[in-house]
């Protein structure tokens, strides 16, 4: 099947996961145990089953997989609506981040049916039955669906994501750009830092301690591509490393999963090309 845009859900449902043992590379504290079943309220006509990852740091127990039956007639159309319905009507301890409910803030990024996406922009009808809801893949879990993004954000601050100009701004107006120069930032400045791409990147799974990951590298390119920035050499020097940049093997799961339809894979290729061009 040909995927045209990242919001397309694959109709290929045969292989839900790679044929590997469940415990493959999983540390003891991360093993997922069976959880409890929460039936639909009496009188519910149209229901859908949601399998949701739960972890309570205060229980001292392992993560578990709870099953909720959601009354579709009582909740909104999006996966986030289903989560809010569960929190309001079934289990108020279900914990998740959400804010804008329209794909702008990136708070509700999670692994839905084995693919990273924002819960607020994924229709419940697009989910399999049972639907699976996990926190962002490969992140430490604070509670339930809330991942700890400290490391990813530290990597973001490493690329120094601000304008570095060698001259002070003009007195009369802001720093100007030509239309063509401004266009070079399209597809990169829109990133909302939801970390769907970084969380879905196998290179970041295995080498996340040193590899910066697609979200951060896309941001790095956003500053390298900016005509007003004067620190290109310095920025490239910081990235020229076998791990920070070159651990990207163009797997391109980042581009497939970006909820904003951006192209981190292309941004990284642009950095590699710029790196090569400066040696010519």
């Amino acid at each position, binding site marked *: 099947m040909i*995927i045209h845009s990242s919001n397309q859900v694959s109709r290929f449902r045969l292989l839900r996961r*790679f044929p590997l043992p469940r415990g493959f590379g999983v*540390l003891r504290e*991360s093993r997922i145990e069976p959880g409890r079943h929460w039936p639909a309220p009496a009188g519910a006509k149209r229901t859908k089953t949601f399998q949701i990852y739960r972890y309570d740091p205060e229980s001292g127990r392992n993560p578990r997989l709870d099953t909720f039956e959601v009354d579709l007639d009582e909740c909104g159309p999006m996966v986030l609506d289903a989560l809010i319905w569960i929190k309001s009507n079934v289990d108020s301890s279900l914990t998740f981040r959400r804010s804008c409910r329209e794909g702008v803030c990136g708070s509700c990024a999670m*692994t839905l049916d084995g693919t990273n996406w924002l819960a607020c922009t994924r229709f419940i009808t697009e989910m399999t039955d049972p639907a699976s809801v*996990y926190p962002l893949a490969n992140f430490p879990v604070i509670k339930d669906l809330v991942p700890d993004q400290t490391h990813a954000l530290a990597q973001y601050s490493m690329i120094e994501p601000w304008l570095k100009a060698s001259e002070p701004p003009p007195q009369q107006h802001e720093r100007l750009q030509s239309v063509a120069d401004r266009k070079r930032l399209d597809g990169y400045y829109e990133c909302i830092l939801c970390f769907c791409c970084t969380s879905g990147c196998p290179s970041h799974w295995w080498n996340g301690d040193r590899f910066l990951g697609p979200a951060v590298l896309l941001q790095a390119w956003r500053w390298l591509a900016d005509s007003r920035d004067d620190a290109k050499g310095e920025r490239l020097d910081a990235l020229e490393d076998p791990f920070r940049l070159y651990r990207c093997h163009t797997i391109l799961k980042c581009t*497939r999963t970006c909820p904003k339809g951006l192209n981190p894979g292309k941004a990284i290729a*642009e950095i590699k*090309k710029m790196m090569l061009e400066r040696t010519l």
Partner: protein
Amino acid sequence: MRPCSPNIQNYRPQLTSVLSIANRITALISTVALVAFVAWLVAAALGPVPYDALYALAASPIGRALLVIATFVFFLHLCGSIRHLFWDAVVGFELRSIYVSGWVAVAASIVLTAAAWLVGGFFKG
């Protein structure tokens, strides 16, 4: 210590990730197949008796099956690596291009494998 949310245990396979890992596995198998190719040359250099022995081994049903697999693996790696050459030049990064080139690589390796064996059979007479 905080648990880590599952990565490969939960993430759905997709064309991009499957072809990426396939490119690595085919590289590994092709390297092993290269040893078999060298063994064939060595046998030819040693004379007709070892060569005939190795030929009989390769012409057995299992030998033939392994050779067909090795040919397919070689072509899949070749086609997959050509995609990477384009990507290194920042060409073909639109999601549609990624999927089209991926399926083209799979189809082309099947066609090239069939073609290689048909042409090989033709020259054998």
